[in-house]
């Protein structure tokens, strides 16, 4: 698995789209990441899903709150560095008990070429927990679907924030030389 790159499509990435679609996710906010590129492409191709490219991840937290006010479910896709950008906006989720589903592709934890990814990557899990977010970390492809199903249940069943961290082991190393 270590020889694969983050550009190679993986079967779990299509399954992930099917799970979100099946859960009636209608707005998907994202700051692009190679590990999410397949999912982003599938969302863009689906006329029932509104895909929203964000300038910073906290925009997606606020958008999720607005979507829920209007009765729509949403998801926020981001890289681990984006978690730090969300911290204050997650107050909105906790203060109002909004559902908030976050899918986070990890950097800075496994076969990481760029040391600048390590500081944020290493504190994603405690940071999210401090923000009252349920966190599940996934390292094996067969764990992705159960973890996302559970996060959907937590977010939309219990009106709270839930995140799934998708390990670098799952995604493959970043391609640096083309």
């Amino acid at each position, binding site marked *: 698995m270590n020889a694969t790159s983050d550009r190679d499509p993986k079967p779990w990435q299509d399954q992930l789209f099917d799970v979100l679609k099946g859960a009636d996710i*209608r707005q998907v906010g994202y700051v692009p990441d190679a590990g999410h590129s397949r999912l982003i492409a599938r969302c863009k191709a689906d006329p029932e899903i509104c895909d929203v490219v*964000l300038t910073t991840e906290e925009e997606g937290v*606020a958008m*999720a709150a*607005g*979507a*829920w*006010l209007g009765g*729509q479910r949403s998801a926020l896709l981001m890289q681990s560095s984006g978690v730090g950008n969300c911290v204050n906006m997650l107050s*909105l989720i906790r203060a109002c008990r909004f559902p908030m589903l976050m899918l986070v592709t990890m950097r800075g934890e496994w076969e990481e070429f760029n040391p600048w990814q390590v500081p944020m990557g290493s504190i994603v899990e405690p940071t999210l927990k401090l923000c009252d977010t349920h966190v599940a970390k996934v390292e094996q492809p067969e764990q992705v679907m159960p973890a996302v199903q559970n996060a959907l249940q937590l977010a939309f069943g219990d009106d709270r924030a839930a995140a799934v961290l998708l390990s670098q082991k799952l995604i493959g190393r970043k391609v640096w030389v083309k």
Partner: protein
Amino acid sequence: MMFERRAAMATLLANRPNNLFVVPGLGSCTWDAFAAGDDDRNFYLWGAMGGAAMIGLGLALAKPNVRVAVITGDGEMLMGLGSLATIGVQRPNNLAIVVFDNGLYGETGMQASHTQSVVDLLAVARGCGIERVMEIEDEAGLRELAGLLATSECTLFARVRILPDDPPRVLPEKDGIVIKERVQRAAEKVG
């Protein structure tokens, strides 16, 4: 001209159609909206600085039959400046962003904001691709804007220059869960 903020809010929300929802930015705009008359269709913000426009976008995309007016201050808008770029890409026709601009951070002691010197929010909105960008010059312009909140056929951005006054605080409901549920129920009624 420079408007009194409470009077400007009252003009914008007078004769408000049933489907007009308001996201007032934290602080003074939330107090102004409440002062204009408590309403289940106001999503009063007590925090989430920089998030008002994106909350408005999420609601506007979710409910095409609802009209959304984000009414916020220059400081709150500056913290979420990137959201104007995001909104420029989406451009829902049922979303308006109105900035009450006094060039000051009012809640914290009237310190100067960026708009008091060189930053022009209308130029930013235009540069982000927002289709209709308006400076509100007088009472007639404000009444025109009030009408457009109900009828505009494109995404709208308006700047209302307000006086640096600090009217007495009037505080709406503070419990976020209550505020959320009121707005949700009101949105469901619109269909």
